[in-house]
């Protein structure tokens, strides 16, 4: 999508249609030539790409050793990898395929026992569940940008409180029933 020229003429410009103020910061990457990668056809005796046998290989994957053409080579962290190793995050090729998402087990463990208070009878399951999840997933990777495990700690405290509440309630009822029976 091309940027309208008026936005680029100055760092700040008003829209000619609605008058809204716009700020555009343009960087040299915008003017780099775009050239499509064209793998060379493989001649007889040339090493050929594993996935494209008619294309000339330019490198070997540093994880599995397969030959790759210009189209298939994935350069990352100073190495060259094949698409299969990058997609499978195999060994050092994982660096070419950084994580795009993570499940936040600490948030699940913390929020579930709190939300479930709205349907309090289910806390009999959610409380111990939160404690178990926190312990099982204690070492699971957290958010890429959040390092603290306080949510797990809070989840354990809340889960134990809910479980303790149930144990106390059941014990109290049993004592009550026993006292009445006497």
């Amino acid at each position, binding site marked *: 999508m091309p*940027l309208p020229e008026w936005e680029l003429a100055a760092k700040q410009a008003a829209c000619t249609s609605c008058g809204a103020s716009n*700020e555009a910061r343009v960087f040299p990457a915008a003017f780099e030539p775009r050239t499509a990668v064209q793998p060379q056809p493989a001649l007889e005796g040339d090493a050929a790409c594993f996935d494209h046998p008619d294309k000339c290989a330019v490198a070997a994957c540093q994880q599995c050793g397969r030959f790759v053409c210009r189209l298939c080579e994935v350069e990352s962290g100073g190495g060259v990898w094949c698409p299969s190793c990058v997609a499978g995050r195999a060994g050092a090729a994982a660096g070419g395929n950084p994580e795009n998402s993570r499940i936040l087990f600490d948030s699940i463990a913390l929020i579930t026992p709190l939300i479930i208070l709205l349907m309090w009878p289910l806390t009999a399951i959610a409380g111990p569940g939160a404690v178990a999840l926190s312990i099982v997933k204690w070492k699971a990777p957290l958010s890429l940008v959040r390092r603290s495990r306080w949510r797990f700690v809070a989840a354990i405290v809340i889960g134990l409180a809910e479980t303790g509440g149930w144990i106390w309630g059941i014990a109290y009822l049993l004592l009550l029933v026993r006292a009445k029976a006497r």
Partner: protein
Amino acid sequence: MRKGPHYRKLPGHRRGFLRGSSMWLGPDYLLAVHSLRFREEYKRYYFRDIQAIVTAEAPRFHISTRFAAIAALLLIAWPFVLAAPARPGISSAGMLGGMAAVVVLAWFLVSGFFSCRCRIYTAVSCDDLPSVYRTWTARKFLLTVEPLIQQAQGSLEASWVRAVGEWNIGPRETSEAPAPAFDSPLAARASFPMIGSAALIASLFADAIWNTITLHSNERWTQVTNGLLTLVEAGAAIVVIAHHFRARPGQGKDHRSKASKAMQRLAIATLTVMAGFYYLSPFAYAWIAGVQASAGGPPVEVTLPIDPYLHQIDAVLAAVLGLVGLAIIWYHREDDSGIIYPSS
């Protein structure tokens, strides 16, 4: 032991009830984090690839969790103010109302006049940065990021503006014509839950009117009618949501009309408000009863002046939601494919 790079938080954070968004500074890239409560999605913009960052003034009426917290605090203070003994010359309820009005007015002003949309361009993508939605945040964000990008790419020559006509910024436009959003006008019409939407909007207005008429009535039949109206609202909302998610064979998400998406959000909002009332009403009753009992010293007959207020709030919310529904139909009466929806 820390694994992976260390990230530094950049200005701006969009905090929603279900979704959040923030920007972080990596070793040689910007990391956009989209939080979906139990899951985070990441997107990296390497400094060497960023072509442009554009911020455009635009109204952004986002209800953040902070704003919701302030509203909740005012709501919690409300029963205390109602139960407090009246003092001559000072109207506590008026003061609280004034504070609420100031908060709402400030939110409207900031959302309408000091908000923006920030977009980042690379050769293959053009993405909104949801966390940068206030003008002062955008300014701070650019001040932090611009030198780093210039450090990675260098700066442009003074004559670069003249070259602009020869270059396209952002992902290359394909020469192929975009696929039509709908197979046929009939398909477009079918993607809009007309009956469900009409039932939802009608029931919302009926609820608003009924609550206003029966503001001081506690008779059984008015409560039954109220319950029936609530059931109709819930049913219509569920029909709208189900219609939105029931993709036609061979059609993907993109084929759902914008009007259908907007109606789906309205239906979710309606269900959320209903659930809120269902759960919060007993709490409110208990709260005000407790406050009254404690204020009265010895056991007193607990009167609950809260009922008409709840009816009023219910009526106002239903009317607002109904008006939003009408606005959606009016705004999307001509969708992308040029189909005209009936405006009533």
